[in-house]
């Protein structure tokens, strides 16, 4: 894996700041993600992980700083345009169209694109959704609903996939399956940022890890480096 600083990163965040009612959820945060990277974002509660995702996807506007995607400043861009640029978010609490069938969910997500999306077909197969197109999405199990949401995101053909706690509420087997899936997906060239609490998942992924604390990057490195970092351990233990 080449070092991120050698070529222009896919995503660059500079001095990003967002406050909610006086509290800085994200505080002059700097981050760079290279194309094709698979990285986990961890940190104690309130560290700003989900806020960062909402800023990246455009749900919220930052108070200061900028976001550069593929060399273009997208800070002012509305959310739907960012999706068209290639950033797609899987929400922390699953958002799918519960009243519609799985197939109909996918129809909406795919847009007016003609032709088949090979990656999507593969994903549906791996995640056990291939035969479920006629099932109402609300009837799927919780894990399948989360997988469906990942597939919806994939249907938009993203270059940068933001997964916010994809394994929340999953069994260890389902977590492992998800991790395998994410690794294979990364191998296909999709840049993926994952916010996770489940360290088993993070270890299974075994790639780069960024630790956020009080809205800033606290530590950044490989899984081994982060695991060995006493400061990281302290902030986690100290919070509990």
């Amino acid at each position, binding site marked *: 894996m080449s070092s991120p600083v050698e070529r222009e990163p896919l995503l660059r965040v500079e001095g990003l700041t967002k406050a909610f009612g006086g509290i800085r959820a994200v505080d002059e945060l700097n981050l760079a993600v290279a194309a094709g990277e698979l990285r986990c974002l961890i940190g104690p509660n309130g560290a700003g992980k989900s806020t960062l995702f909402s800023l990246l*996807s455009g749900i919220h506007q930052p108070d200061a700083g900028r976001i550069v995607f593929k060399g273009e400043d997208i800070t002012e861009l509305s*959310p739907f345009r960012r999706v068209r640029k290639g950033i797609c978010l899987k929400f922390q609490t699953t*958002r799918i*169209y519960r009243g519609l069938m799985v*197939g109909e969910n996918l129809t909406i997500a795919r*847009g007016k694109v003609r032709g088949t999306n090979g990656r999507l077909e593969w994903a549906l197969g791996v995640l056990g959704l291939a035969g479920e197109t006629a099932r109402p999405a609300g009837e799927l199990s919780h894990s399948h609903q989360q997988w469906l949401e990942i597939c*919806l995101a994939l249907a*938009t053909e993203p270059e940068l996939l933001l997964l916010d706690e994809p394994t929340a509420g999953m069994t260890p087997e389902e977590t492992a399956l998800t991790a395998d899936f994410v690794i294979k997906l990364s191998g296909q060239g999709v840049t993926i940022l994952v916010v996770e609490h489940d360290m088993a998942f993070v270890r299974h992924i075994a790639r780069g890890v960024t630790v956020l604390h009080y809205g800033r990057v606290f530590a950044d490195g490989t899984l081994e480096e982060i695991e060995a970092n006493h400061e990281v351990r302290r902030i986690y233990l100290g919070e509990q």
Partner: protein
Amino acid sequence: MRGPLGIFSRVGGRQDLGRGAAFWVAFAIVALGLVAFPLFGSAFYLSNLANFFVYVPMGLGLCLLWGYGGILSFGQASFFGISGYVYGIVAQNLSLTPGASLLGVAAAILATVIVAALFGYFVFYGQVSAWIIPLLTLVLSLILETFMAQTAGYQWRIGHVLLGGYNGMTGIPSIQVGPLEFGGASIALYLLTVIAMLLGYLGLRLLVNSHFGYVVVGVRDDVERTRMLGYNVARMQVTVFALAAGLAGLSGVLYVSWGNYINPSSMGLYAATLPVIWTAVGGRSSLIAVTLSTVALKWLADSLAVRGGEYAFLIMGALLLATMLFFPAGIVVSLNRLWRRARRQAP
């Protein structure tokens, strides 16, 4: 869902009640019956039925907007009225030009769509909270009614056509194509309203089963999700709003062709509420339900006026109340569910 016969499978899609051979056979029989009715119906019945069918496009527009799009609007009557007035102004001013009434129809529907798009632009691009939208549309209809009601004087005219104030605009010519006049008691107008109703229904059914239709439903079910899948939600909402308004405009020109008259109460509070009642009572999630309920409720109101007199208001109000309490999804939709459940349970 995407078979070789794309359009047919789409029209028959699951975004509306009634699928399969049995439904479509029944639909065809009813449609043929309606078209053949002039052979054995009196001029009065043709005129009366035409009056009911006139309002179906407007009801269908609201069904699309509210049932499928999730946007409750009291504005359909406003667009009905704008259309009627614009047609009256254009058709009467150009009365000596051949094809004047067709120009009037085009101008009326165009004006309606433009006003709706403008209104929608401010509402949806302005990210107004969803719950305020019904109030804004209600305010629109009140403003229009109040404004038009005070245009009584001679200075309130466009070309040589007086707006008429509270008394309304009279002498509006019926739509005329060559020698064919679509007058209030004519077979031509009856057939035109039947065609408008059938095409409106089929066209919308095609639309809601198309990709666009699914996205509209997506916007209704989860705006944020749809936005985050790359859709310009505001533009979609304006489009649906303008489409619904255009359908109300179609009803408007059909109405003035039938009655040769329009006045501000066509845009007032009572008129604004009626489409909402038709849609709610039938079941806003289904186009066929709203078609049936619009015709049924207009027929009911007519019957009550003739036979029931002062009980009319009571009965309509009681009906609405009963629907809200016992059939919140709408009478037709609820009955359909009960029937399907009964069928499943049958030995």
